[in-house]
């Protein structure tokens, strides 16, 4: 029999997220890859499974005062404050370049209220090139006293259902790790219609400067990301994989192809490379290369053989 020619160096790296088939499981994490163009000198963008852009809100946001970032042990804290150009400028200024890339563009969205989420989704639903919407539910719900949508299954489900109603593209709900039981959140958004879940967003953390006796971030607290959080992320992906049937996108400290494939073994259908892009701007493409090499060497029929293939017991 003739070997079937497939994309990416003749190994089958295709994975499915909702109704989308991606050429490979490697995406970039929201907020760590700008609007992709920033990386065009470093990465062959066409080779990515998908690109997830910085979180977009209805109106532009200026973000938090500096300092916004601080390095921690094997990680970093950020309190960017969701700075973004707003959905209108995103569509007019950023989408033309992105949609010309020929790879799926996932738009990460955020809001203060269920209504705001669904209005952004409505705006994006009509835009050519938007392949999926990733809903960042780690934002405070101003109408509910600032509790994060992602901290309450009911609120998370409400946002999910509203966004689902507002657009036709697959809806991915990005879960917060700052909860007692992430599986409750995952089940709630699956029931509310999510096509996939991505996890984890950042852990809430803090850093203090002894000399000035001040918090190192102007915002006092920020989001912890990078290799430090990988064990927590891997555990949550594994736990969620036991309870949902929708695809999982694994995120958290992924730096190498090995990291990415560990998340797939734990149950992820795809992964996102985040903080690693700052250290190695070529990280996302390196992960694609590394997965392809592994699939070839191990003579796997497809990268999909790795999904949930963890041997326990």
């Amino acid at each position, binding site marked *: 029999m003739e070997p079937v020619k497939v994309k990416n160096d003749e190994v089958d790296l295709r994975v499915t997220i909702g109704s989308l088939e991606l050429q490979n499981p490697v995406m970039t994490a929201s*907020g*760590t*890859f*700008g609007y992709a163009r*920033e*990386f065009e*000198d*470093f990465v062959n963008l066409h080779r990515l499974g998908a690109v997830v852009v*910085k979180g977009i809100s209805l109106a532009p946001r*200026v*973000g*938090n*005062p*500096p*300092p*916004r*970032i*601080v*390095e921690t*042990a*094997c*990680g*970093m804290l*950020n309190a*960017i404050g969701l*700075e973004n150009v707003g959905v209108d400028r995103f569509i007019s200024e950023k989408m033309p370049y992105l949609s010309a890339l020929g790879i799926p563009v996932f738009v990460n969205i955020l809001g203060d209220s269920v209504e705001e989420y669904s209005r952004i989704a409505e705006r994006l639903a009509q835009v050519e090139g938007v392949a999926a919407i990733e809903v960042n539910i780690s934002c405070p719900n101003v109408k509910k006293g600032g509790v994060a949508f992602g901290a309450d299954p009911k609120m998370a489900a409400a946002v999910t259902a509203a966004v689902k109603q507002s657009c036709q593209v697959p809806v991915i709900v990005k879960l917060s790790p700052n909860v007692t039981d992430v599986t409750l959140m995952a089940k709630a958004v699956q029931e509310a219609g999510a096509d996939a879940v991505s996890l984890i967003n950042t852990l809430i953390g803090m850093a203090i400067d002894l000399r000035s006796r001040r918090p190192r971030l102007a915002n006092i607290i920020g989001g912890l990301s*990078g*290799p430090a959080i990988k064990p927590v992320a891997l555990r949550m992906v594994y736990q969620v994989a036991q309870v949902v049937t929708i695809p999982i996108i694994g995120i958290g400290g992924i*730096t190498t192809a090995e990291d990415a494939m560990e998340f797939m073994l734990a149950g992820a259908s795809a992964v996102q490379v985040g*903080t690693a*892009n*700052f*250290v*190695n*701007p*070529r990280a996302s493409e390196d992960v694609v290369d590394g997965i392809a090499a592994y699939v070839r060497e191990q003579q796997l029929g497809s990268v999909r053989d790795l999904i949930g293939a963890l041997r326990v017991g």
Partner: protein
Amino acid sequence: MSQFQKKVELVRSEVIARDVVRLTLNAPEIAAAALPGQFVMIQIAPGKDPLLRRPFSIHQTSSEGTLQILFKVVGRGTELLAHAKVGEQLSLIGPLGKGFVLGEPGNACLVGGGMGIAPMLFLASRFQQLAKQGSAPKVILGARNRDELAPLIGDFKNLGLEVLAATDDGSLGHHGLVTDVLKKINLSPDFTVYSCGPRPMMAAIHHLCLKENIRCQVSVETVMACGMGACLGCAVPLKAGGYAHACSDGPVFEAGELLWSL
């Protein structure tokens, strides 16, 4: 605008003064593309701690493809970098950011304080390449003392430039601040001041230039994670409200566009 990620060889490491180190790297692509005021991000360790790259102004480039950085040891990253061995490979990203907008060499005044001297040498040498006979830029450099300043003044002399020096302790040149020197030389309004140094110094220069109606460009420092406009971590408050990003909108800004009263 081309940017590169390269493993480059450390070909020379010099201790210029106490805790001040100059590294010479063999980085032809980055050196060739570099403009004065741009910077590089250097990976400190092969492991994951320290995790992030550190930004350094491009201090000098050569036609042989070398690139220099000049830095002070202030923390763990610079400490490790100061101990990098000749022959080691370092990972660089660059050239990054927007550099100085170069005007007439004869109407340029370069003011560098402390490690803010680093980009000034590259800027001066570019001006000297552009300059017609007898139209050299003015250069004012400040540091804590003679030990820190003297070795660097030589490099400007090698370019054929006289340096007006200022030291905190008076051990070399003017006893006091670079702003005192700047005041004394009475620039005409067709000059542009190019400045890099500690924030209070740049604020003082900005206010002086504002009064004298002189254009002033400053190179600012912030914490940076990516250095390429992706993380939005390097926010610089703007006079008009909101923030610019030091790594992609800067690090060089028109002084008048920034919010100085922090």
